[in-house]
């Protein structure tokens, strides 16, 4: 990533979109819209002081909404370019409210609320599409109850939970436990406030609220307005304290997730959604199970799949190593349903096809290995570029020229072409680069001929 940002031959146009493409191989005229960041790229040093002071919280898409970011943000800590960006949908200043705190904080004077989108015209010989994919939304499968049961998460959400730079600092805290901890924090804040108000009354009348309340309820102060206020405050206080105490007691028992279930083929190899195999998910689940075991040696993982597809160099060995050293059990069977058991524990109902029995098993967390879905923006992009898509909306290619699109001079690589893992994406990317370079050098040849 750093190399890309530093390379003298690469012009990095982040936060930009291709709007129009005309011409043909060797001579494409491209219009690129550079979206306004409201931060001057030539001045921003990426120090992050603005984000520290920004008062607006927005769910952080990079962390799959598992934590919040500010309205002025960098996508992630090591992001390149490190220039911050103001989220125009959420920024108070840009939505007509009074704010501008970031502009006051920024020592480099990089904030520019009047920045406009810029249009850039490029002339290129070839184009490579590396537009990637989208994660399949498993809430389309009602029986898996994603979003209904908090401890059912997607593989990419689990990845963020495992990450040391993620929302939990790498601890496998369950989403339901995290939600309860947030609730406890909020309740504690409101208890703190009411405690303050009560202590004023306590000082004034020289007795504890509890003792006073006892007397008040037995009718000791019939027409005392001030004491009535005190009593009301104390009654409100009690309604918060009691649930807080019971939540706190529950939270004492919280541990990190130790019993994990991975469910394969969520959206892929499923005729309701995508009939194809997404390829990387089996290995992704094994990797997540191995890393989880590295984090906590008593973690056990169960991977439910129709079959485990470990096709690739070193993959089968990795799978076996996971089974032998990382407490992974592989169960051949497709999960029929996920229910919610006690303590927010998901219960998986499945048929064990080896024993021919329907079974149920309780876990701390369930991870859905979601399909590689074509990216939503690719339809518009394909129209702009004038290239064809296949029936699923991946770029159309042929088996003998797997990086050539239907338009000469435009190539494709990575998951925009079809689902693939990192090593395959890298190989295809080099292949597409070489095909594009051929166009460049061909134009050289034509020129030489013309001169001769």
């Amino acid at each position: 990533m750093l190399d890309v940002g530093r390379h003298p031959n690469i012009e990095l146009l982040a936060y930009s979109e291709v709007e129009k493409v005309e011409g043909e191989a060797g001579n494409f005229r491209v219009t690129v819209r550079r979206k306004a960041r409201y931060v001057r790229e030539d001045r921003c040093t990426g120090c992050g002081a603005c984000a520290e002071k920004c008062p607006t919280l927005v769910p952080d898409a990079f962390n799959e909404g598992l934590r919040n970011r500010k309205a002025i943000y960098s996508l992630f800590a090591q992001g390149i370019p490190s220039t911050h960006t103001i989220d125009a949908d959420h920024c108070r200043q840009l939505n007509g409210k009074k704010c501008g705190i970031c502009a006051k904080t920024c020592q480099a004077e990089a904030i520019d609320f009047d920045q406009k989108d810029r249009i850039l015209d490029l002339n290129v010989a070839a184009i490579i599409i590396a537009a990637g994919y989208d994660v399949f939304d498993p809430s389309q499968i009602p029986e898996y109850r994603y979003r209904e049961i908090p401890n059912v998460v997607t593989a990419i959400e689990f990845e963020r939970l495992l990450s040391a730079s993620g929302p939990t600092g790498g601890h496998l805290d369950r989403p339901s436990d995290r939600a309860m901890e947030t609730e406890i924090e909020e309740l504690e804040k409101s208890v703190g406030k009411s405690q303050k108000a009560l202590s004023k009354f306590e000082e004034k009348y020289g007795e504890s609220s509890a003792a006073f309340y006892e007397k008040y309820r037995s009718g000791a102060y019939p027409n005392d307005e001030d004491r009535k206020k005190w009593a009301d405050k104390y009654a409100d206080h009690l309604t918060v304290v009691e649930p807080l105490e019971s939540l706190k007691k529950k939270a004492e028992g919280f541990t990190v997730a130790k019993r994990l279930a991975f469910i394969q083929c969520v959206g892929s190899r499923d005729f309701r959604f995508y009939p194809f195999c997404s390829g990387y998910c089996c290995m992704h689940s094994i990797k997540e199970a191995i890393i989880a075991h590295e984090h906590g040696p008593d973690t056990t993982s169960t991977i439910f799949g129709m079959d485990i597809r470990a096709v690739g160099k070193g993959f089968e060995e990795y799978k076996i190593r996971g089974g032998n050293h990382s407490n992974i059990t592989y169960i051949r069977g497709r999960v029929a349903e996920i229910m919610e058991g006690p303590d927010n524990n998901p219960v998986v109902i499945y048929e064990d096809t080896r024993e021919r029995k329907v079974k149920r098993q309780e876990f701390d967390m369930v991870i859905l290995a979601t399909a590689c879905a074509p990216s939503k923006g690719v339809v518009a992009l394909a129209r702009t570029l004038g290239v064809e898509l296949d029936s699923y909306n991946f770029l159309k290619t042929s088996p003998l020229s797997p990086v050539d699109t239907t338009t000469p001079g435009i190539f494709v690589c990575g998951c925009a072409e079809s689902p693939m893992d990192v090593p395959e994406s890298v190989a295809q990317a080099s292949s597409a680069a070489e095909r594009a370079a051929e166009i460049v050098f061909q134009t050289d040849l034509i020129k030489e001929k013309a001169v001769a």
Partner: protein
Amino acid sequence: MTKDILIIGGGIAGMQSSLDLADMGIKVHLVEKLPSIGGKMAQLDKTFPTNDCAI
């Protein structure tokens, strides 16, 4: 005649293509929709089968 190349998408595939072409001495314009490059791979903690860090 131009010798530049446009790459759409700054994930692992787009980055690899960019670097390959740039190393060949070709000028590359890398367009990314989001504020930073890295794509889905930047979200990953480790990569299989070697458990190498993704970033």
